[in-house]
């Protein structure tokens, strides 16, 4: 394990086995199933380990006072590696300086996220919100066991004891025992103590939650020692590269590998079920050999012939064809009935293009298949430890127990590394299988783009019915886009009743006071490789919703902020973030040559609002964002500065998706290949970003990607305020903005 880190210096490497097994020949039980109330280690455990006491599957105490806490989530920059153990440490009343964070092994049963039905999957800004309740309980259980042991040791009533960080106190006698001292004699009950909510700390008693601590792995990220899978070095390791078809599922019709094989240093060319792999002595040789492969791909795959234009065309037809019933995502009241009775009906259409993750570490993985081919070790950066293990096992036809998993830091995830097939992990496993040597499989940036799995292309068709007073009485949102969940995760899709969570999220409107509303999906399997991308469907869907509400506000002649406040009359938290951001931006003040645009969203319960200040260069259609104000109420902010950092980052992602980022599909294949033709935001593109974190005592609801969907609608609405032109597609490329400006001028003339 290479990302184990000590809270203090982030340098200490520990073997996971030490905690999980203790000593050879001895095992301890943990129950499986959710909610994961744990069966604690038996008393025998004590005798077997002289130094460490495994209190439960999450906590191991050492007699030296070290407290090892498992972190079930992977670390991709979002901070969960630190913030999850910190939640447990809070209820354990642990001295944070003595905490060591240990990335947990792959196990859905023990370490799965309740929010994903017990899947060990780090995604959706769901780590803190999903694990929060259980981690507090696990921490409280361990603290309870320590108190019980101290009570027995001293022969005093349990109720007379208290804790301060890592110490049990008996105030009456002035005695104290450190957690490490208790570990030396602790008896661990076979059943976890029952913890009732009143036994947990009050928010006001928190010492760790809500106070910033340094993320444990941070020191390794300023001196080059942080370990990503691309950094793994193994004795005898060789290098692999893969050529995949331009369109998913296209078979090899003809392969000429003679030029590749002739390159010095090429070890093997391997035909795979889905492409061609090369193995070489160095990465450079592997890339050269991959580029020298000549393959004719069969035209047998669905995606051939697809293009962005075709997508927009077909999806527009599907979105507007009301005779085509969609799969309902949110249905409240009788939207269509209410629409029929409305005084006026307003329509709008908004589009979003394919977009690419562009995580900075191109996908890669290291695998070492045993000589007998019956076991494998893998080193990878994945968003799901268990998916990686399962995929590797399946690729070899072995049991998951025969897969040794080494979780590495992720050089960015953004949803790209959470596909059920974990294709880049399987690449390494199959190549290692072919030669029975350790293989570092590397995708070039060009591979990463061309084999990319993209945020789908969207056409959103919106209708709002207004009553006499101009209030929205009916809401109908139709989403036409490529299918995503079925491609990304057929297992989850099979139990979703046809609902595509990744595509449809964000069309639910729990805080807006619109009684009759319907959102529905009319999706098309275009054969494109699709994926969850930071903020998933919430991005395109909120672009549509918040742009549309801006249009409705204009038609009604009401200020967009006042309009949202009216719609949020039943959501005090929603109103609060809106009012605060309006104040920050000085919303009512006109700026010469600049427009202000507003957006509000509820993202999984997190409340956010934003104001963008933009200018537009009329000659070119170039938008420039000067200021971006955001308020965020994520409930309890476990790590406040990290919430702000994530909000900064998700705004930057939102800027790219709003203004420049798009993937071009021609005849089913990706046209872009690297950062020169896929433009992501750079420092020179940054506006002044102003963030106000408004924590409340509510259950924490996530922060990792919540601000991303605010950006596009806030910008589009600002462009409208400035120019009167409505930009209906992201990214808002200069050419399209110019067209919208011309259209507006024509209308005005």
């Amino acid at each position, binding site marked *: 394990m290479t990302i184990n880190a000590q809270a203090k210096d982030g340098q200490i490497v520990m073997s996971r086995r030490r905690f999980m097994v203790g000593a050879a020949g001895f095992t301890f039980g943990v129950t499986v199933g959710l909610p994961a109330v744990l069966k604690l280690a038996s008393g025998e455990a004590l005798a077997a380990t002289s130094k460490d006491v495994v209190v439960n599957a999450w906590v191991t105490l050492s007699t030296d006072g070290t407290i090892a806490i498992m972190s079930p989530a992977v670390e991709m*920059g*979002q*901070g969960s590696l630190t913030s999850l153990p910190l939640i447990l440490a809070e209820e354990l009343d642990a001295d944070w300086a003595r905490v060591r964070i240990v990335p947990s092994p792959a196990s859905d049963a023990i370490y799965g996220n309740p929010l994903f039905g017990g899947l060990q999957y780090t995604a959706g800004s769901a780590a803190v919100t999903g694990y929060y309740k259980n981690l507090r309980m696990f921490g409280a259980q361990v603290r309870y066991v320590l108190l019980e042991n101290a009570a027995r040791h001293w022969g005093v009533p349990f109720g007379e004891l208290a804790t301060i960080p890592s110490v049990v106190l008996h105030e009456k006698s002035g005695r104290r025992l450190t957690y490490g001292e208790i570990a030396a004699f602790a008896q661990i009950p076979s059943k976890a103590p029952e913890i009732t909510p009143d036994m947990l700390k009050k928010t006001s008693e928190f010492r760790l939650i809500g106070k910033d601590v*340094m*993320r444990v*792995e*941070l*020191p*390794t*990220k*300023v*001196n*080059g*020692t*942080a370990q*990503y899978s*691309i*950094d793994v*070095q193994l004795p005898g390791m060789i*290098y692999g590269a893969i050529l995949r078809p331009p369109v998913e599922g296209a078979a090899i019709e003809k392969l000429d590998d003679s030029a590749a094989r*002739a*390159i*010095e*240093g090429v070890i093997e060319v391997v035909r795979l079920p889905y492409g061609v792999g090369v193995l070489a002595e*160095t*990465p*450079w*040789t592997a890339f050269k050999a991959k580029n020298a492969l000549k393959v004719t791909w069969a035209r047998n795959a669905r995606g051939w012939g697809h293009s962005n234009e075709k997508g927009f065309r077909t999806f527009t037809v599907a979105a507007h064809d009301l005779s085509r019933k969609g799969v309902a995502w949110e249905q409240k009241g009788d939207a269509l009935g209410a629409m029929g009775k409305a005084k006026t009906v307003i329509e709008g259409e908004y589009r979003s293009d394919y977009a690419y993750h*562009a*995580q*900075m*570490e*191109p996908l890669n993985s290291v695998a070492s298949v045993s000589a007998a081919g019956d076991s494998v070790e893998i080193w990878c950066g994945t968003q799901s430890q268990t998916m990686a293990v399962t995929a590797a096992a399946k690729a070899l036809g072995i049991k998951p127990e025969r897969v040794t998993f080494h979780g590495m*830091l992720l*050089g*960015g*995830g953004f949803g790209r590394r959470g596909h059920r097939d974990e294709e880049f992990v399987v690449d390494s496993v199959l190549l290692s299988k072919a030669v029975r040597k350790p293989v570092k499989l590397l995708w*070039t*940036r*060009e591979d990463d783009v061309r084999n990319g799995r993209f945020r789908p292309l969207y056409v959103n068709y919106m209708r709002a019915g207004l009553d006499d007073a101009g209030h929205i009485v009916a809401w109908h949102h139709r989403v036409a886009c490529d299918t995503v969940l079925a491609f990304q995760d057929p297992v989850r899709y099979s139990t979703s009743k046809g609902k595509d969570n990744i595509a449809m999220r964000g069309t639910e409107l729990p805080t807006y006071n619109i009684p009759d509303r319907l959102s529905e999906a009319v999706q098309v399997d275009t054969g494109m490789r699709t994926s969850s991308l930071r903020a998933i469907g919430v991005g395109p869907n909120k672009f549509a919703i918040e742009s549309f509400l801006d249009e409705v506000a204009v038609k009604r002649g009401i200020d967009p902020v006042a309009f949202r406040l009216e719609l949020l009359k039943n959501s005090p938290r929603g109103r609060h973030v809106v009012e605060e951001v309006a104040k920050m931006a000085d919303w009512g003040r006109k700026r010469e040559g600049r427009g202000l645009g507003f957006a509000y969203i509820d993202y999984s319960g997190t409340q956010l609002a934003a104001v963008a200040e933009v200018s537009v260069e009329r000659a070119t259609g170039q938008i420039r964002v000067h200021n971006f104000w955001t308020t965020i109420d994520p409930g309890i902010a476990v790590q406040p*500065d*990290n919430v702000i*950092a*994530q909000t*900064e*980052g*998700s*705004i*930057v*992602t939102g800027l790219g998706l709003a203004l420049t980022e798009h993937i071009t599909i021609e005849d089913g294949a990706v046209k872009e290949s*690297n*950062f*020169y033709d896929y433009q*992501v*935001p*750079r*420092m*020179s593109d*940054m506006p002044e*970003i102003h963030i106000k974190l408004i924590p409340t005592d509510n259950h924490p609801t996530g922060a990792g990607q919540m601000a991303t969907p605010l950006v596009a609608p806030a910008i589009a609405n600002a462009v409208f305020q400035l120019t009167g032109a409505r930009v209906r597609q992201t990214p808002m490329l200069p050419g399209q903005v110019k067209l919208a400006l011309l259209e507006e001028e024509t209308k005005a003339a």
Partner: protein
Amino acid sequence: MSQTITTTLTINGKRHSVTADPDTPLLWVLREQLKLTGTRYGCGVGQCGACTVHIDGKPNYACLNPIKDLEGRSVTTIEGLSPDSSHPLQKAWLAESVPQCGYCQSGQIMRAAGLLKDNPNPSRQEIVEYMSPNICRCGTYIRIARAIERAAKEA
């Protein structure tokens, strides 16, 4: 197909002789032959800056410099910036909690080190212009700029 060559160069103050295909970018020699993995691969075409090192004291792209051009030259990588993370930029990076995924940060720090060497007190505008070749996909730009300002002040 090409014959390998042996190149002698100085890396982090130590002389190394490496044998490789002459076209092999310095990046892969550093990472896979010398195991200096702090210098990272991001694009291979000088577009992202993740592989930024100093060659003869100036920030440069390890991915664009073939080993055959580096005979007798001097390379500094993130591992050679300081022995103990004590460079003012490294301290400032932690003080501002800059890294998220961290993958690009070696390159960011090496580029920033080049900036401060030339210009110990850069303005915000000079920082933005100088740092814009380097991509951070997590979006830590604001903190990078702040950390450079802090390092300049505290150095």
